[in-house]
């Protein structure tokens, strides 16, 4: 009775919409990220720094875009994330494309052979948390405006700085918030802080860990949403700073 060829199903709903939409969104993001990451230009304007280039390392011996040195961390973090694994296994590998739908590949090893590296997600999580600290520093910088203003080329004029908020500052702070919600809702962090315990009430330390575990569990319930929101917003943040840097739009200084 069973027919497991690609796309074979008795489902009547638009099951293909989710993998097709996901595929389109991710291809667009990958194309944009590759273009931004390789360009090596227009990633700064005034006190703003694109999240694609943060933390900014520009060693003299490195002839390529500085983004290449740092993008490996968010790339590794997201590609090994449980949520994104589900997404691209479905959309790119059609393994399966949707529930109760036939798939293309007949030989299947899951995450036991080649994909066993997914088990090292936790090391990217550690690095992603460190990157959040850099984003905090970037946001603080985004609130420090030169008294002498921004030069026409987008560089900060020399001289003392003062506190200020621009529209780009708010966009960058929101980016940090969304990335934090996504990162701290991670399944591995949930496991690390308390999920690995069998008894939450056995000591004061374990009770504290249970409290943190509950908070992370709440974030984890919406891990998918934060994953998409943070992906979209990080793109938007870069685009805003890029357009400011290119002179196509002008940043709004709020105070």
């Amino acid at each position, binding site marked *: 009775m069973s027919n497991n060829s690609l796309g074979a199903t008795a489902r009547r709903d638009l099951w293909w919409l989710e993998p097709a939409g996901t595929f389109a969104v991710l291809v667009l993001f990958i194309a944009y990220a590759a273009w931004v990451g390789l360009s090596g230009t227009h990633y700064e304007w005034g006190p703003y720094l694109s999240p694609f280039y943060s933390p900014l390392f520009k060693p003299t011996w490195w002839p390529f875009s500085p983004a290449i040195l740092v993008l490996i961390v968010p790339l590794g973090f997201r590609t090994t994330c449980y949520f994104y694994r589900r997404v691209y296994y479905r959309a790119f590998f059609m393994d399966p494309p949707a529930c109760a739908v036939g798939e293309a590949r007949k030989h299947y090893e899951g995450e036991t052979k080649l994909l066993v590296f997914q088990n090292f997600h936790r090391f990217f999580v550690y690095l992603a948390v460190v990157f959040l600290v850099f984003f905090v520093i970037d946001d603080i910088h985004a609130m420090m405006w030169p008294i002498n203003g921004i030069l026409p080329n987008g560089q900060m004029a020399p001289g003392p700085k003062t506190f200020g908020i621009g529209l780009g500052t708010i966009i960058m702070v929101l980016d940090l918030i969304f990335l934090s919600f996504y990162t701290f809702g991670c*399944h591995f962090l949930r496991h690390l802080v308390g999920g*690995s315990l*069998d*008894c939450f009430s056995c000591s004061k330390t374990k009770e504290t860990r249970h409290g943190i575990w509950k908070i992370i569990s709440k974030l984890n319930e919406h891990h998918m949403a934060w994953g998409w929101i943070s992906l979209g917003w990080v793109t938007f943040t870069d685009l805003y700073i890029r357009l400011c840097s290119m002179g196509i739009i002008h940043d709004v200084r709020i105070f």
Partner: protein
Amino acid sequence: MRSIRLKIFRGTSNSGEFKEYTLEVEEGMVVLDAIHRLQATQSPDLACRWNCKAGKCGSCSAEINGKPRLMCMTRLNDLPVNKTITIAPLQTFPIMKDLATDVSWNYQVNKKITPFTPKSNAEWHWEQKDIDRIQEFRKCIECFLCQDVCHVLRVHQKHSVYAGPRFFVRMAALEMHPIDSADRLPFLKTDAGLGYCNITKCCTQVCPESIAITDNAIIPLKERVVDRFYDPIFILFRKLFKKK
């Protein structure tokens, strides 16, 4: 009273075909009601398994319009009744007759799992927070819809090397129990084939008890397996401090 069209699989694993029926139904009926009416009025030899008709026994699992669901919990109103409704047996298991499948493989897998093994000096007292996680897993009614939809079993037929979501839920409940002392992680990694799961979350989507199978059972177990077998820092830490 209105009329609906049903297309139901009739036959066994060896031979069978979908047969069409037209049936008079009433407001509020579920798919299982329609099957019962069909048995009573047109096809008394139509086989289907059922028991409670309340979504608690897990017997009447089937694939309705291609989706694994409980027949007793699927209202006809919620289906596009102007089109023919397809009802098929669970694809993952051998068909005994019509809508009844042989799910005995699941019971064989269950026997391989080390049962609850309390610590010898255990104090049989714990707090609610210690068993909140486990209570979610205890809601399982063993309808095996998760086993049916899991592509590792459904498409790739890895029955010999993979236990399936239902038994990951059971093992999670045991592993997370505050006074259980058995170690099932080696079994999970090898015989139970936890690594074959690629987080499609289909099991979670079809669970009639809304158990967050992937997020609360499978992924936490995967992380425990990583702690034990893959993470060099954890492995070194255990060796240094002689923790198992």
